[in-house]
């Protein structure tokens, strides 16, 4: 009786304060160990929020925060790709006295001074995924990076298992010199010896993760190289428009090691029979990186036990050759631009991307 009163009261208080979190949903689950007893407010700060990957990530971060009833208020700010706005978002959250901040620092070291100020003013500051420079304990609480070398190693292992005698690899990544692509290449080279030849110019073919540029780059590469055994790309869905180019050359789509996406899975289902060499291996595209960062931020702010990991390692997701850990997945009823590897359910993701 007393307990339910308390619950009702807290629910009312939550409503009164206009909180995003509902007390009932939090109490319905077991409170995770990273959620401590001290009350705290949490802000998720995005440098750029306008694509499906970010929308799913944001929804994932919110869902993770909702698991912890100690979080009394949850804020979100979108830097809209504007470094100035991203900085002013961080400053304004600090000025509001938010206890914990999880920051996707797209602008890199440019946001470090703002993060440092927030950290010095006593907030828990957890940048994640994009390296912002600085050091933990001095400029921010902890950096929860993603291990892209690990991604590269995962792809390397799969390539080695499927092409034990060596292979010609075409590696596509985003903008020139992006550190993600460089780390992935390092990972692949840790696993693959000289019998595996990279056909692209060093270090990777630049696509800006743009589907139309990818299509142009791939057309040129296919025309130039008779024998592409494997394509490696760190943004699988951007290949969906480009892969049919192989048809123009009357060649089978080759094996593909990449990150997952619903549209890619469905593309494989539709096309693998006509393309005998089209094997697909994906690692999770990493929306759940934000969960680890949120767990750390909440643990530090509420006095919970921090998670063991500080680096997000994307698990393997689909493998068309042996179905381990999962066969290729396609949910044709859901939008193409969602990521079935994410812990957020497909339907919730569809909601998050507004479809």
């Amino acid at each position, binding site marked *: 009786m007393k307990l339910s009163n308390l619950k009702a009261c807290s629910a009312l208080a939550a409503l009164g304060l206009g909180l995003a979190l509902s007390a009932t949903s939090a109490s319905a689950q077991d409170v995770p160990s990273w959620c401590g007893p001290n009350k705290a407010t949490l802000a998720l700060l995005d440098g750029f*929020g*306008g*694509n*499906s990957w*970010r*929308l799913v990530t944001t929804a994932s971060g919110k869902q993770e925060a909702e698991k912890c009833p100690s979080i009394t208020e949850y804020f979100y700010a979108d830097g809209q790709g504007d470094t100035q706005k991203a900085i002013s978002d961080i400053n304004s959250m600090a000025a509001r006295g938010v206890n914990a901040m999880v920051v996707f620092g797209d602008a890199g070291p440019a946001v470090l001074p703002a993060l440092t100020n927030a950290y010095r003013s006593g907030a828990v500051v957890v940048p994640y995924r994009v390296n912002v420079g600085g050091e933990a304990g001095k400029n921010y609480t902890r950096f929860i990076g993603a291990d892209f070398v690990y991604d590269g190693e995962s792809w390397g292992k799969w390539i080695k298992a499927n092409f034990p005698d060596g292979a010609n690899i075409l590696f596509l990544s985003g903008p*020139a010199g992006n550190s993600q692509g460089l780390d992935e290449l390092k990972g692949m080279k840790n696993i693959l010896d000289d019998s595996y030849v990279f056909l*692209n*110019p*060093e270090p990777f073919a*630049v696509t800006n993760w*743009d*589907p*139309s*540029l990818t*299509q*142009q*780059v*791939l*057309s*040129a*590469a*296919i*025309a*130039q190289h008779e024998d592409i055994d494997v394509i490696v790309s760190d943004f699988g*869905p*951007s290949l*969906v*428009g480009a892969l*049919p*180019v192989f048809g*123009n*050359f009357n060649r089978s789509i080759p094996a593909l090691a990449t990150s997952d996406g619903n*549209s890619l899975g469905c593309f494989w289902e539709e096309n693998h029979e006509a393309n005998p060499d089209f094997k697909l291996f994906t690692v999770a595209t990493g929306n759940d990186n934000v969960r680890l960062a949120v767990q750390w931020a909440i643990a530090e702010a509420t006095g919970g036990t921090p998670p063991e990991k500080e680096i997000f390692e994307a698990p393997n997701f689909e493998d068309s050759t042996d179905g381990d850990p999962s066969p290729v997945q396609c949910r044709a009823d859901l*939008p*193409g*631009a969602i990521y079935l590897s994410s812990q957020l359910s497909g339907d919730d993701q569809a909601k998050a*991307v*507004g*479809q």
Partner: protein
Amino acid sequence: MADSSPNTFGGAAGLASVNLAKGFVTIVVSTLALIVLCVIFAPSAVTAGSLVGSLPFASVLAIVGLGQMLVVQQGGFDLSVPGSVSLAVVIATHMPNGNDAMLLQSVLVAIGFALVAGVLNGIMVAYFRLNAIVATIGMNALLYAAVFAISGGVPRITTKLLAGIAGGKTLGIPHSVYFALGLLAIVSFVLKKTVAGRRFEAIGANPKAARAAGLVVKPYQAMAYVFAQLLYCTAGILIAGITREPTAFQGNSLLLPSVAVVVLAGTSLLGGRGFPISVVIAAFFLNQLSQFALSIGVPYSAQTIVQALALVFGIGVYSIDWTTRFKTATQSSTEEENP
């Protein structure tokens, strides 16, 4: 490229009396030289398969370039290319959401938006005398607001029908090429063979003289922006079909090339005559140039430099009066030698 420029220039100078030829001859000779370079150094860039893969993008660029040309002919610049192309992409993919039956409506809606944007641009520039750059950059921001309102930045997959119409092939040639050629024919015909088109060019060349001759100047200037928007819209719908899963910002990479092809085609940035055929050839040239750079495997930085050099070359050929410059230079150097 570098090898071809002196020849090209000679050819152009030889035909200087026939003013028509300068832009056309230059771009044709450059393109032929590029094809020869491709055959020698990067044969893979001119195979049928490679061309089928890259021509759709050249076609899109050609269509956007034709739109930009109309605006440049009136002495303006249209910086709303990214917004309007992206908006067309987003409308053509979001409204139908995979349902072919909705495609026609979505295309009509996209055209409606293009008309509104074009009319607004035209009124701001022609009637309110706003600077074209300022007016169109503002319009670009508005169009992007619409892009976000409709899509939230999330792309959707193209309908099968649109993919077939825009991305398909007939007689081995991508449909987008037919679209580009068809629009080229229409734009050329209207500009060169109709009264309205001739007036349009005359007004672009010298609005004051045109007014003195009794022409109503403003509607023509405004119509440049309207037709430009319609062309961008067509290009956007084609991109949506060509790239199956486009981003919501697909127009971003088209702004600079759209100006580049207009310049390479020899259109004066001060306004005046347009060269639609040259614009389309220039689009093929720029596209082939990047395929060439990709095929010989130069680093990305070098690819960007090569494209920038092509642009400088284009401006250099047309904007500077080399004949007089060259003469003055030789004269002054002879003078310096004999003080």
